């Protein structure tokens, strides 16, 4: 005879529907009877169409005559007795809960097995079908019997149970299909479903609220479970479910419902740990996020106690993003000791780069470089930093040899440029030139590589190449323009910015350095044949303005000494530097601030070394952020520079803001984000020359982009705007000519191409020829 016990247990576990609870409850553990009301009053306010006749809150029994009856109201207990007979404890409990909710004065019979119905086999079969979840069959059986026995009255209880079970099915199905409005609609219409005995339904309703931005309703639903339901596993599961859908403050509110064991242990300890982990994990993705020290401490405790790599990793990234490099290194090493994973290696690599140990970083990251784009980028950053150490360190041949193919495979212009500088400092000028050209092939607007190529050409005595580069970059790079100026000439243009900047590293400086030390001889730095095999030979080199040398080198021809005679043939760079076709974008203008140092070299120098680590600069003071922005520009990392300049824009100093706006605009331009460049330029008042310079660059970029997108009218508008503030440029005139041509504005196209021809550029006659073809296709074909 276990039944009575079970009955009691069932009775105590029962409470009101959640939505009803919301309306009526203040004191948490009011006896369940006091919370109850009839179903219609329990609808969620937002779903109710026409308010049902709601009983007054103080009198939930109003309007329910049954409830006003004495101790034993006339309650249909057939279902209860049926389930008791079947020994179906779960349904028996649910039924008792439901009847208690409906009839507040009602008490379950002491022994439901007594006084069972005299025997209605048809009704028993209906209940049996109901218990098996065959709801449609119950519907059918009821209707069949009604047709056969018109006098038969369906037990109200059966109809209610059936409707409720159907609604439950519908709710669960809708929830599985993420139809959250349906879940809420059905749940609200059936408050009797929302009880501790149907905690799964409560969870689904809570989840639906949370996923439709009704967070407070979700909190209420979870809190209802925690305040009223006693099953420990369900309580913990409720918290765990809340963890997935609610933000921290809501969770903090809910966890106050935690119950403590006599020994003081909280039932939600596992959830608290998980909350701490998630807080730290969130901090791993957002350096600005403030993570409670208690959460960090909890994860540290867990990492020590459970020795999981995942916890150590959480802490590693957390500290790395906050620039706590030694702490980060410690946790990444710990994680790596437990499991040598990509993430741990990448994190450790980054901490090593940040501590200026690029050789160690390279060694650790090499194995993981092919795992993901991010891992490859980290590896290349390590390699670039290793190459950028100044003066150059002795890099083992096998290391160099594995860097080169990675750079080539990734077509990484920044690393190619570093290889150029590395070769340059080793006096391997030919090799240097080849790497700079390679960098420009991958990134035609890479001013530092153009500059590198120019000074290398100067060292090689290749004046033609120098002149060609200077022409190509005229108006876009001061340091290229002034290459070859005398000291006196330069002294007259003392850079305003110089004081705040790393000392300019100009060609003389390099020469002095070389004079001062013994050049390291090395022979491994040749771009290998493998590298060039990866490039299409014909069209690519044709199309690229700088790829004019016969690039491929036999793999065996690796030995090259420091000094080399002038190239035998005059460089064809001059010709190639002319825009070869209208489809080619001119390099995005990137005016170098006067007196700026060669950028990449700066990466290895003390004053700018601080920005080589991939860190979030938002914690820096505005002026530091500004410097970091310029430093990142030097490293050709414009996207990070944008963020740094953004921080600097928050400065109280107008000068800092002006410089930051200028820098950010340049950074956007370099990143190819023309529109944002224009927005950035307007973020602070700029001096006239700077705003003109930016406007010119922005308009040129817009014109090129519009042209490439086939929006010729827009391209012309941008060119007009540009030409109103800056002198004409031949390549842009060519662009204009083709824009007219594509718009069939023949006369204007002809006028422009004639003007281009008058400058001596071959693009003039070529444009005129194309114009003839376009105007008279048949004549030309014949």
């Amino acid at each position, binding site marked *: 005879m276990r039944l009575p016990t079970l009955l009691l247990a069932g009775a105590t576990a029962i409470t009101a529907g959640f939505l009803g609870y919301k309306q009526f409850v203040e004191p948490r553990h009011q006896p369940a009877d006091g919370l109850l009301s009839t179903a219609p009053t329990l609808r969620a306010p937002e779903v109710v169409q026409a308010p049902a006749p709601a009983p007054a809150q103080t009198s939930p029994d109003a309007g329910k005559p049954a409830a006003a009856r004495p101790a034993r109201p006339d309650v249909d207990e057939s279902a209860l007795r049926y389930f008791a007979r079947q020994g179906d404890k779960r349904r028996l409990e649910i039924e008792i809960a439901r009847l208690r909710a409906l009839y507040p004065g009602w008490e379950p019979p002491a022994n439901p097995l007594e006084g069972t119905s005299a025997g209605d086999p048809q009704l028993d079969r209906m209940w049996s079908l109901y218990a098996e979840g*065959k709801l*449609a069959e119950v519907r059918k059986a009821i*209707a069949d019997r009604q047709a056969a026995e018109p006098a038969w009255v369906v037990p109200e209880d059966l109809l209610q149970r059936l409707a409720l079970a*159907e609604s439950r099915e*519908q709710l669960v*199905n809708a929830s599985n299909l993420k*139809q959250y409005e*349906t879940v809420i609609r059905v749940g609200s219409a059936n408050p009797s479903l929302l009880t501790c005995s149907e905690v799964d339904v409560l969870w689904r309703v809570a989840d639906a609220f949370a996923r439709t931005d009704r967070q407070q309703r979700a909190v209420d639903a979870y809190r209802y479970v925690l305040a009223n339901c006693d099953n420990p596993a369900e309580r913990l599961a409720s918290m765990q479910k809340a963890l997935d859908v609610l933000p921290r403050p809501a969770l903090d509110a809910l966890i106050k419902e935690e119950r403590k064991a006599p020994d003081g242990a909280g039932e939600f300890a596992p959830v608290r740990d998980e909350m701490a982990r998630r807080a730290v994990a969130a901090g791993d993705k957002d350096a600005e996020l403030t993570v409670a020290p208690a959460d960090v401490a909890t994860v540290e405790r867990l990492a020590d106690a459970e020795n999981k790599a995942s916890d150590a990793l959480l802490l590693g990234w957390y500290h790395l993003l906050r620039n706590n490099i030694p702490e980060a290194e410690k946790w990444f090493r710990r994680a790596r000791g437990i499991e040598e994973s990509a993430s741990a290696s990448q994190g450790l690599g980054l901490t090593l780069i940040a501590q200026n140990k690029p050789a160690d970083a390279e060694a650790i990251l090499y194995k993981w470089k092919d795992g993901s784009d991010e891992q490859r980028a980290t590896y290349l950053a390590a390699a670039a930093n290793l190459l950028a150490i100044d003066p150059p360190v002795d890099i083992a041949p096998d290391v160099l040899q594995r860097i080169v193919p990675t750079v080539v495979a990734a077509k990484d212009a920044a690393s190619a440029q570093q290889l150029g500088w590395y070769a340059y400092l080793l006096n391997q000028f030919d090799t240097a030139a080849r790497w700079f050209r390679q960098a420009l092939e991958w990134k035609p607007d890479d001013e530092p590589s153009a500059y590198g190529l120019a000074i290398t050409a100067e060292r090689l005595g290749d004046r033609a190449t120098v002149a060609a580069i200077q022409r190509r970059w005229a108006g876009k790079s001061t340091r290229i323009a002034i290459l070859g100026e005398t000291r006196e000439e330069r002294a007259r243009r003392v850079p305003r910015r110089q004081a705040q900047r790393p000392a300019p590293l100009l060609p003389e400086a390099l020469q002095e350095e070389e004079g001062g030390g013994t050049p390291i001889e090395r022979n491994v730095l040749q771009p290998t044949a493998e590298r060039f095999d990866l490039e299409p030979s014909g069209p690519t080199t044709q199309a690229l303005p700088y790829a004019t040398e016969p690039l491929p080198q036999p793999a065996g021809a690796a030995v090259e000494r420091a000094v080399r005679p002038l190239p035998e043939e005059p460089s064809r760079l001059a010709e190639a530097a002319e825009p070869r076709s209208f489809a080619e974008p001119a390099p995005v203008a990137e005016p170098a601030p006067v007196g700026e140092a060669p950028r990449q070299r700066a990466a290895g120098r003390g004053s700018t070394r601080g920005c080589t680590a991939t860190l979030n600069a938002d914690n820096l003071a505005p002026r530091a952020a500004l410097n970091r922005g310029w430093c990142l520009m030097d490293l050709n990392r414009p996207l990070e520079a944008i963020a740094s300049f953004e921080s600097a824009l928050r400065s109280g100093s107008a000068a800092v803001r002006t410089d930051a706006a200028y820098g950010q605009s340049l950074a956007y331009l370099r990143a190819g984000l023309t529109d944002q460049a224009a927005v950035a330029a307007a973020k602070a008042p700029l001096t006239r020359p700077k705003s003109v310079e930016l406007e010119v660059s922005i308009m040129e970029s817009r014109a090129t982009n519009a042209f490439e997108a086939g929006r010729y009218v827009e391209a012309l508008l941008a060119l007009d705007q540009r030409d109103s503030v800056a002198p004409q440029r031949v390549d842009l005139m060519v662009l204009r000519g083709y824009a007219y041509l594509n718009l069939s504005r023949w006369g204007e196209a002809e006028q422009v191409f004639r003007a281009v021809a008058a400058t001596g550029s071959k693009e003039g006659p070529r444009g005129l020829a194309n114009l003839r073809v376009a105007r008279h296709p048949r004549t030309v074909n014949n």
Partner: protein
Amino acid sequence: MSPRTAVCRLACTALALLFLFAPAKAAGMIRAADWDAYKAKFVDPSGRVVDDGNGGISHSEGQGYGLLLAFLADNRADFEQIWSFTRTELLLRDDGLAAWKWDPNAQPRVTDLNNASDGDILIAYALARAGTAWDRDDLTQAASTIADAVGKEAVAEQQGRKLLMPAAAGFGPGDRKDGPVVNLSYLVFEAFPELARVAPDTDWKRIADDGRALIERARFSPRKLPPDWLSLKTRPRPADGFAEEFGYNALRIPLYLVRAGTEDPALLTALAAGMQGSDGNVHIVDLDTGADKAALAEAGYRAIPALIACVVDGKKMPADLAAFQPSVYYPSTLHLLALAFAAEKHPECL
């Protein structure tokens, strides 16, 4: 009676008069034995109408047909059974429409949450008729909710036409290059007067009128037949990505027209002639060439031109078509619909 239907009563009665045909209140147009045979084969105990020709899946269309046939057979118990399944398993969408596809071998069972407008309309229509005939406000209210949702989610206006879109999503001008695309066989004409009664916010009469005009116009090949899927981006033409044919969808069009009381002998005769081969079978027709692609011999298909021949020319339906033998779900369904109409309106055909 819900406030909505009360409000509607006056306006809707007037509106219903505008339609050619308003369904009779009485049920019982399908013989009990025929319905039992159908049910035994295609309705499982859970109230699911099984498309046995389609891997045993179920869909909103099938549930709608099941409800309608149960109503026409005046079988409330079976209606309740099918409705229970429909409500709990398909009426799950946030917008109040039914998910169209249900697969007993998948989890979750609903494998495509999209709706199919003909399924929604059939369900709403059957509920509306049953609600009135059996005085059941709960059914009328459910019909009203679904019909309102169809009007809100799946009706579009284009080039002066009011279009029933095949679904709430996926067929509009923004969804397809050749959009809007419609399926003329989703126009269950007999349903529209009922929908106008329970969901008066939508202009069902215009949908019906514009749909009829489109059927007149969008007929292709020497056989002059409408396609299953029709693009209305410019001049009406068979839609891209579907077989360019008068197929299993479109062959319902003449049946729906007849059942709705369309009195247009020329159109009905032309459709019947185009779809029927000399062998008496119904043909799937290539609308590029007018060639036959397949001959459908099941009685349920052949009953359609036979019904037209009787309605238009007074030709009695052949004995093998006047009797019902279940074959597979789809033609059997069409067969019962044809027989129910004949029994009610043209008993001389049987």
